[in-house]
């Protein structure tokens, strides 16, 4: 694809994302007209904390819309990274168990009341370690079945790990039931608790994770074709794998920490973008980030408007779209997966 066409696709995605975000700010339990948004934008320069619409827009909706986009972009970049790492387009933070690993890590940090290390909260750190451990476990387990790991082995390993981590998580909650509320609040938090603080803590970690995956773009293009190809082109496969797994785990853990477990975003967005812009990671990763941002933003808007004032967990929406997509992908490409 010529560079110009690629850039116009990115530009179109940005425009769609911008208008969806604008719509996301106006939509909700209280509908705020576009005109009102413009009026409130004016207030921005003369802050008036008494204005209800100002509060709704700036304290609630705007951070939520931004966080939804950040979470979507992170999950999608993490998915793209994991797909390269596993050489398998079915890998996704949710599918391989990285999300539940992150959740378990976070829960442990909460119940053990681990102290923060410098500016990094122990919850974020443990979520990251949990995701990383899950990734390497899924990798080692599926590797027993062959190299590259066949799709089935990867899915089985991921499912088994997810089940195991979830069981441990439930066990912890049963034993430490006084923390149950806090852990659940954190896990199922969804985007309902979005705030500027949440945004400011999560986004740097997400950016760091995405950047680690992005700098590995070029060797990742080669790694997905096999370890031998990578070695023969001089790539330090271990170092590359570690970098990609760390970046993807960071991004996934930060997304889980901000919005709970949201499935399939890391599967749908990269896959759709791969069809449009191709498998070249330099191009794929930015497009996948925008696609993921759009997907979670739309899912969140649907989640909070379809049954307003009741708010559905966003994971329900992405799973309703994602699970059939996953099955179609498995049927259509099942024979070729894992190479």
């Amino acid at each position, binding site marked *: 694809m010529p560079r110009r066409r690629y850039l116009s696709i990115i530009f179109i995605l940005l425009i769609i994302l911008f208008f969806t975000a604008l719509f996301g700010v106006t939509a909700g339990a209280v509908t705020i007209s576009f005109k009102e948004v413009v009026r409130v934008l004016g207030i921005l320069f003369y802050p008036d904390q008494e204005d209800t619409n100002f509060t709704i827009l700036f304290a609630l909706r705007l951070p939520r819309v931004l966080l939804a986009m950040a979470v979507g972009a992170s999950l999608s970049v993490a998915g793209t990274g994991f797909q390269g790492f596993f050489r398998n387009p079915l890998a996704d933070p949710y599918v391989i168990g990285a999300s539940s690993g992150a959740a378990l890590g976070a829960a442990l940090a909460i119940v053990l009341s681990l102290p923060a290390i410098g500016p990094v909260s122990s919850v974020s750190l443990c979520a990251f370690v949990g995701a990383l451990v899950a990734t390497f476990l899924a990798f080692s387990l599926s590797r027993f079945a062959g190299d590259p790991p066949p799709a089935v082995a990867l899915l089985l390993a991921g499912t088994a790990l997810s089940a195991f981590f979830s069981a441990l998580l439930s066990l912890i909650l049963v034993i430490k039931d006084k923390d149950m509320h806090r852990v659940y609040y954190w896990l199922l938090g969804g985007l309902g608790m979005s705030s500027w603080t949440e945004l400011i803590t999560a986004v740097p970690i997400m950016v760091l994770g995405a950047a680690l995956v992005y700098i590995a773009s070029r060797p990742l293009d080669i790694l997905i074709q096999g370890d*031998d190809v990578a070695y023969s082109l001089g*790539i330090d496969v271990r170092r590359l794998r570690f970098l990609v797994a760390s970046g993807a785990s960071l991004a996934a853990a930060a997304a889980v920490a901000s919005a709970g477990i949201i499935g399939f975003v890391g599967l749908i967005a990269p896959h759709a973008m791969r069809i449009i812009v191709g498998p070249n990671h330099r191009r794929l990763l930015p497009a996948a980030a925008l696609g993921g941002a759009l997907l979670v933003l739309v899912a969140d808007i649907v989640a909070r408007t379809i049954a307003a004032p009741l708010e559905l967990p966003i994971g329900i929406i992405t799973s309703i779209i994602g699970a059939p997509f996953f099955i179609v992908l498995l049927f259509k490409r099942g024979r*070729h997966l894992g*190479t």
Partner: protein
Amino acid sequence: MAPDVRLSADNLSVGYHGRSILSRISFSVSKGELLTLVGPNGAGKTTLLKTLAALIKPLSGTILLDSKPLETFSSYERAVKIGYVAQGSSIHWPFTVYELVSQGRFPSRGWFGSESPADKLAIEEALEITDLYSYRERLVTELSGGELQRVLIARALAQKPELLLLDEPVSHLDIRYQIGVMELLQKLVSQGLSAIISLHDLNLASLYASTVSLVAQGGIVTHGTVKEVLRPDILQEAYNINLEVGPHPESPDLPMIYYQRQR
């Protein structure tokens, strides 16, 4: 040692997990030489090629590349000198031909380097010599087996290697593409490249190889010119079948293998 020796193996033993598959391997490949490895399935040709490509470590013995031990090269230095194409490579990611061939510049460009004029030249030369120039924008997932094999060779050539290692480059190809790949290799070695390839088709080996190594029974049984190696007694012993060897109708110097029914 002759000055034009590219790669030499001395008393090499290769295998996996400490278990030797081939041992006492000694040979050398010179500039402009096409060495073909022939021998029964499972004899260890792939293992030997992987060892020469430094994908696996030899169990013992030494490999010298340009008179320097292979293990002293950094992975990038090595990748600039040796191009390797694995057996039966297939690619399920829809890269364009140009993208895939440009990956051969990775050892020179590294993780971040942008495409230099030298990179561009190397890629275009590789596309040119493999007759793929008009395929640049095609997706590799939509190519035939023969076309894909040429793309993979082109990627290895874009590395600007001195030595090309190809594991069964013509298996799964129809006769026309088999000849096409072999003609390409002959053209490349005539320009000074060295190549070590494994082949099953003994007649192709006879037509195109400079030297042949027969790999069987845990070692190199015979190494030499096609006439020295492709002899009925040697081949019958290695493959355990009856066959006859006669001259090629047009080039009587080249031995041709005639298989026989066994009963």
